[in-house]
């Protein structure tokens, strides 16, 4: 459980079951749909597709260009099912990007998996636009004062993902090794990817 799953009222659980059974009865919900969701997000969860795209972009300049031009098409090269438009913003020494959805919690599920709880809560949604550096510091991320912070408020059906900067000292790593370095939070833009300990 943990804090991702506060003790939910038993009323809520009963109501979900009730709605589920009513919708199965009406032919709206397939009887195996819940199992399919569990399978998908318990097994395929996580930011693997996003991490693959990032590692490839670091390794392959032509891919990087395709990713920045059309995120959906570039990610689909890995065979993933991406049913949203995807805009990828590249971090540079001059600009740091960060993604939020102030009005609800739009998130690039197809490339990053289930959103973390904090992403969906008012604390993050409210402050990311008015005090992003303060929020970043709470994630341990210090953005140099002369570096611009750009916050992307996901108000349309386009989804946003950050292409983080490749950490120094990773020139010798294979693409597969690079994938392992790429964290979900770095693709939301609340952290940067540190130089791996092994190459320090």
């Amino acid at each position, binding site marked *: 459980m943990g804090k991702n799953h506060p003790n939910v009222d038993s009323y809520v659980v009963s109501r979900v079951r009730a709605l589920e059974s009513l919708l199965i009865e009406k032919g709206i919900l397939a009887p195996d749909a819940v199992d399919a969701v569990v399978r998908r997000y318990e097994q395929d969860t996580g930011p693997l597709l996003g991490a693959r795209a990032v590692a490839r972009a670091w390794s392959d300049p032509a891919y990087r260009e395709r990713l920045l031009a059309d995120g959906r098409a570039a990610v689909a090269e890995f065979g993933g099912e991406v049913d949203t438009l995807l805009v990828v913003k590249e971090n540079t020494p001059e600009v740091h990007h960060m993604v939020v959805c102030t009005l609800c919690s739009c998130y690039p599920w197809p490339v990053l998996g289930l959103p973390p709880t904090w992403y969906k809560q008012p604390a993050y949604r409210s402050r990311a*636009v008015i005090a992003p550096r303060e929020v970043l510091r709470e994630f341990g991320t210090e953005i140099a004062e002369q570096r611009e912070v750009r916050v992307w408020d996901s*108000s349309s059906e386009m989804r946003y993902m950050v292409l983080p900067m490749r950490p120094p000292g990773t020139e010798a790593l294979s693409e597969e090794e690079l994938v392992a370095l790429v964290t979900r939070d770095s693709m939301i833009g609340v952290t940067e990817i540190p130089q791996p300990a092994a190459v320090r």
Partner: protein
Amino acid sequence: MNGVHDVGGMHGFGPVDWDEGPPSLDDWEAAVVAIQGATRRTGLINIDEFRHGIERMAPAHYLGSSYFEHWLDGIARVLVEKGAIDPAALDARTAFFAERPDGAARDALAAAPPATRPSVPHRGYVRPERAPPRFRAGDAVRARTTHPAGHTRLPRYARGRRGVIAAYHGVHVFPDTHAHGLGEQPQPLYSVRFEARELWGESAEPREAVYLDAWEPYLEPA
């Protein structure tokens, strides 16, 4: 609507409750995700109706409940409004499961369920361009001062504020009508850059800009 969901720029929610662990779904949450998918798949509830269903939660309930409780509450509201489910039946069945905490959905079914309805093909949200867009990258714009009681994707913090068109993204389904049974009425969509100083005045952090996706009716020339 100027609802409690429109939290951009608010204070008072405390520090971010950062949790490094990978997210997972409880059983009831997975069921909510499946239900949401089914209502979308069958064309019963579109994305904007879904969001507006959540926005109309009682404000104290919205702030006091978790994300997937929002989904549950919003979906049930819209399904009832559309006549797709009977609220009394939902209440009765909720009571049925309250008596059976370990029950499964099928326990409430008197007979074998019917065949599941076919999916409505998902067309995405981009539509053909019928006229040239009003604005071009680099144009100075101002987000309109408007406070509609209905659904909108223009957050309060941007209203009346000046920005610059950063990019044009083609013509997209318009949430303000799509949420209200008034059709897709597709509109040009832009990425608009707002300087933090313009949004927050002297309270702004240095060197910050917020980018917002804004449909053409949200904008006027500045």
